[in-house]
């Protein structure tokens, strides 16, 4: 049976780079995937592109490509990534330029474009899933609309000979499904194979989250050597057989437990995990430890894909103002509470308008609120935190100011005041009839 090994070189935009180098050097992989595009990143990148037409791709693209291209070229490892963000063609041009500068002019770089569906979304006046309203009603607050593309255009780019495939918004598991479809010639309506391939992609897409990252809980779930965490490798057979593993000697661990946690990560109904290429069914999945850091994952299935694609819509969503200050030593909690009362009253007195507020004490109740946070003992130190959502930057600035002025106007011994005011680019979702997104492949000469 034919088998490919796919390495997962990044689980988010800012992820560590050495584990990807380790995968390329020692992972015996044929494909290296970098998943670097968060929900909001395309919207922010779109703003950057509006200012400079050659920007709008991942800020770490150059550093990552420089680090892995020589190794990948020497070993014939092909790269698939969504580092194109809002500008896959510019990212591909940049990558080709880096390849040339490294003396690797033979590398073929392809961009997948067509995820930008802002015009189709405006024309269709589609309803927003998260709240009442439509795309059209966002008016000039609308920044971007990008469809989650499936694996097919990326697989076609690989089949057309691309060594590096750079896409913008695509479903994360599809980045991994593409090499499988290319290598094994899987049919795009073999729902069970696509479902099992989606299991593989879903498990690998967050990189270190399946090799022991986001997992350790000392005394309960111990993980060795997290400072040198190895990133995962998926060994996939042409019949969908899947083993998750990592580079021998790297940090972390691949166990049935890490695989189970990651399988359910960001999953709602496990029988219906909606993807552009398939509706995957994780409900019958089994995991089995078959060796050290080797886990077999089987039983993924699927049903026919839907007629729509999910679209991530970026929009301007007002401002957030925030201020913080710390109190320590005896009575810290009482002074922190007094500080919150003072700020609350000041914001009222000076008429700062916000549609939503948070008044909290970091170290006491900031994460889960006063109800969940049943306090056992008085903490040695507390940090006051006040945040509010406003319609203008000016208003947002006043929130932090009212915390900062506690230095000279508030309880005794407040220290380390900090404030911020920022604009918010939020993301919502709509469903677009799939035929309205028309992905295309563009090769860029190295």
């Amino acid at each position: 049976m034919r088998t490919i090994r796919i390495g997962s070189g990044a689980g988010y935009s800012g992820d560590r780079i050495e584990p990807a180098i380790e995968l390329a050097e020692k992972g015996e992989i044929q494909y290296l995937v970098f998943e670097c595009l968060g929900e909001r990143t395309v919207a922010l990148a779109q703003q950057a592109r509006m200012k400079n037409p050659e920007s709008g791709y991942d800020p770490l693209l150059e550093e990552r490509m420089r680090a892995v291209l020589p190794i990948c070229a020497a070993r014939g490892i092909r790269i698939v990534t969504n580092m194109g963000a809002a500008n896959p063609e510019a990212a591909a041009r940049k990558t080709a330029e880096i390849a040339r500068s490294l003396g690797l002019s033979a590398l073929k770089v392809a961009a997948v474009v067509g995820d930008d569906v802002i015009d189709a979304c405006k024309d269709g006046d589609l309803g927003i899933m998260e709240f009442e309203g439509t795309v059209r009603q966002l008016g000039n607050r609308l920044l971007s609309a990008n469809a989650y593309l499936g694996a097919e255009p990326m697989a076609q780019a690989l089949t057309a000979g691309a060594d590096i495939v750079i896409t913008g918004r695509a479903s994360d598991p599809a980045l991994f499904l593409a090499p499988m479809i290319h290598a094994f010639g899987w049919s795009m309506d073999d729902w069970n194979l696509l479902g099992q391939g989606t299991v593989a992609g879903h498990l690998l897409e967050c990189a270190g989250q399946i090799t022991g990252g986001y997992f350790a809980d000392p005394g309960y779930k111990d993980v060795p050597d997290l400072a040198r965490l190895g990133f995962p490798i998926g060994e996939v057979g042409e019949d969908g057989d899947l083993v998750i593993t990592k580079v021998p000697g790297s940090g972390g661990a691949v166990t049935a437990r890490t695989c189970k946690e990651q399988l359910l990560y960001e999953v709602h109904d496990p029988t219906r995990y909606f993807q552009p290429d398939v509706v995957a069914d994780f409900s019958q999945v089994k995991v089995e430890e078959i060796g050290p850091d080797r886990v077999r994952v089987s039983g993924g299935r699927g049903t026919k894909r839907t007629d729509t694609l999910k679209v991530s819509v970026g929009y301007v969503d007002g401002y957030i103002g925030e201020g913080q200050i710390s109190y320590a030593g005896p009575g810290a909690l009482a002074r922190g509470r007094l500080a919150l009362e003072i700020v609350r009253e000041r914001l009222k007195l000076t008429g700062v308008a916000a549609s939503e507020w948070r008044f909290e004490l970091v170290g006491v109740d900031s994460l889960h609120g006063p109800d969940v946070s049943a306090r056992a003992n008085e903490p040695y130190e507390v940090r006051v935190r006040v945040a509010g959502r406003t319609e203008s930057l000016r208003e947002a600035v006043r929130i932090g100011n009212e915390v900062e002025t506690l230095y000279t106007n508030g309880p005794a011994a407040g220290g380390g005041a900090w404030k911020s005011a920022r604009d918010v680019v939020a993301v919502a979702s709509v469903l677009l009839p799939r035929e309205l997104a028309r992905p295309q492949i563009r090769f860029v000469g190295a």
Partner: protein
Amino acid sequence: MKLRAIAHSRTGDKGNISNISVIAYDAKDYPVLREQVTAARVKAHFAGVVRGEVVRYELPSLHALNFVMDQALGGGVTRSLALDAHGKSLSSALLDLDISPPPGDKE
């Protein structure tokens, strides 16, 4: 005893929806999870945090439950005022749930 003694957990976020897996360390404890870690208890545990419904899915082949909590993230990671906008820390909070040891279990 606490849920933490028999299960591990991970939180994920999508929009304003948080999901928390609860996975038995040992298959024999899965029935305890099914019986005691109900959607209603999870909703009550997160009173003040989760504003919408809590739905529970069962995964017997993994000895796991998956809780999907609507309106749990202050509008979602891209707009939330919260310090932990993803709700990453919710899984640890859920493991603080009290569990009655099953009859015959020496605890």
